[in-house]
């Protein structure tokens, strides 16, 4: 193990290298009559860990996230959270939606205050708003708190969405390509913002993306999914690049380029060539783990 994995709280047990997950996804599948979108998907997310799921559209990424959120159900398999099977959505699992999903009739502050009020039903309206204000300050939006979403830029709206998710103090933060609708500059700023907030809070997080740099910047582990139908997790990458990572400094880090090349190769060719039935010897519970960044430094 490299020193790069340290600096974030991790809980590991078991001698076979499997993590005692806060979330344990056990053999979930999504089937329609005559079509299997994905199957035999197993993975865990440890407490304090940031896991990214990378794959092309159509492989069922969003469905997996919705199943974790409790908004959707799996055709097969179960998801355990702290040892208990998930049933339905919960305040323990906050979602940052792709399309911000702010309520346009509420101001930025009231959007966050609504979430605070749901988390703490006993709080008075004023107290909920005070806490919402603090949450908005953390994402640098205190000045725009009174504005309606229509009066906010795309990046600001997503900041409100981030503040709303953090305001409920979830055990697990779920993100469905949260920055894909933003321009490159805003996206970079928000990625660092999320990186900072996640580190500060020791937040356990699961994120879907197809932005390779985003995954490298944020994730401890990156799950690579093959193309659908019958998509599966083909490989798990351990991101050994040391933290803190910054967007500006990322590509100067030793090991960054082999890591990036590995993921790009997967997305460009191997996600396609590996699609379909798994190769012999593939254990869906323990997909191969690779550390491209580490191999480079050892070479």
């Amino acid at each position, binding site marked *: 193990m490299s020193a790069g994995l340290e600096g974030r709280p991790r809980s590991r047990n078991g001698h076979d290298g499997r993590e005692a997950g806060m979330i344990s996804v056990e053999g979930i599948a999504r089937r329609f009559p005559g079509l299997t979108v994905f199957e035999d998907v197993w993975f865990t997310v440890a407490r304090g860990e940031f896991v990214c799921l990378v794959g092309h559209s159509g492989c069922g990424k969003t469905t997996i996230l919705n199943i974790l959120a409790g908004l959707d159900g799996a055709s097969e398999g179960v998801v355990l959270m702290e040892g208990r099977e998930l049933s339905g959505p*919960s305040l323990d699992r906050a979602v940052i939606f792709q399309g911000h999903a702010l309520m346009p*009739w509420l101001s930025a502050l009231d959007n966050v205050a609504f979430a605070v009020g749901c988390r703490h039903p006993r709080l008075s309206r004023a107290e909920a708003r005070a806490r919402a204000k603090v949450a908005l300050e953390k994402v640098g939006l205190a000045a725009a708190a009174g504005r309606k979403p229509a009066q906010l830029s795309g990046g600001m709206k997503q900041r409100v969405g981030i503040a709303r998710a953090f305001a409920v103090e979830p055990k697990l933060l779920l993100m469905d390509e949260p920055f894909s609708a933003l321009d490159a500059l805003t996206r970079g700023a928000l990625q660092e913002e999320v990186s900072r907030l996640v580190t500060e809070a020791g937040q356990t997080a699961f994120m879907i993306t197809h932005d390779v740099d985003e995954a490298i910047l944020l994730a401890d582990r990156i799950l690579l999914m093959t193309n659908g139908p019958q998509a599966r997790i083909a490989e798990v990458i351990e991101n050994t690049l040391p933290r803190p990572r910054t967007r500006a400094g990322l590509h100067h880090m030793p090991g960054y380029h082999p890591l990036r090349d590995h993921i790009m190769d997967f997305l460009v060719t191997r996600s396609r060539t590996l699609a379909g039935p798994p190769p012999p010897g593939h254990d869906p519970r323990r997909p191969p783990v690779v550390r491209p960044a580490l191999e480079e430094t050892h070479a």
Partner: protein
Amino acid sequence: MARDVSPWKAALLSLALLALLLGAWELALSGPAGPGGAAMDPEYAALLGQAAQAGGQTAMPAPSAILARLVELLADPFHRRGTNDQGIGIQIAYSLWRVAAGFGLAMVVAIPLGFLIGMSPLLNAALNPFIQVLRPVSPLAWMPLALYTIKDSSISSVFVIFICSVWPMLLNTAFGVASVRREWLNVAATLEAGSWKTAMRVILPAAAPTILTGMRISIGIAWLVIVAAEMLVGGTGIGYWVWNQWNNLSIADIVIAILLIGVVGLLLDRLLGWVAGRVAWQE
């Protein structure tokens, strides 16, 4: 189409058109009475009776006469001198009261029911045939049934207002509720907001503009229907008053009533338009 027009120019043109219309009207009536009453419908002349004999003049008043009568009516709009002589303000108040009662009742029924229909595709499919059959029925067709069962003409007209206001509100509420964005419902679900909180804090505000559109259509229809309903059942109200003035052959009063009905209808629409503006939201 959507080019900006100076409001002053438009107002000026409106005034010019009004002046032209009224001027032509005034002029047409002030000229020498044509070759006798030949142009007059004989039946109308018979109705006119003494008036016709008294010079063969038409009963159609000139705008100036109507204006004079309007000033007279508005000078004391709330007088009551017996059942058949009540001020025009009183009559309009009766009509407004009936519309308010029927419309309010329709709101109480249509908005919660529309909520259920909008949330439940099953209920939607089950109730749709009833709605589709009943909706196109003229509300006045219900009048005999209402009179027979309720046995009170005033409440019957309230019922007729209810039945005509209920459909647009019901359909719009159901549509608004059914088309609330999935993502907002997902947000509420992940926040464990509960059904009541989700209904009141997410679905209602999301559907409010659509519901208000339905209410605006309803109040328009209700105000159209109340005149006809009151003509039918009589007693009080602006519709009854119009019919009464027709029986008195006071054409000036009828023209004034038309004007006032229009103005009140406009005000009702503007009132709901203002409320709609308050609940409107934009993405």
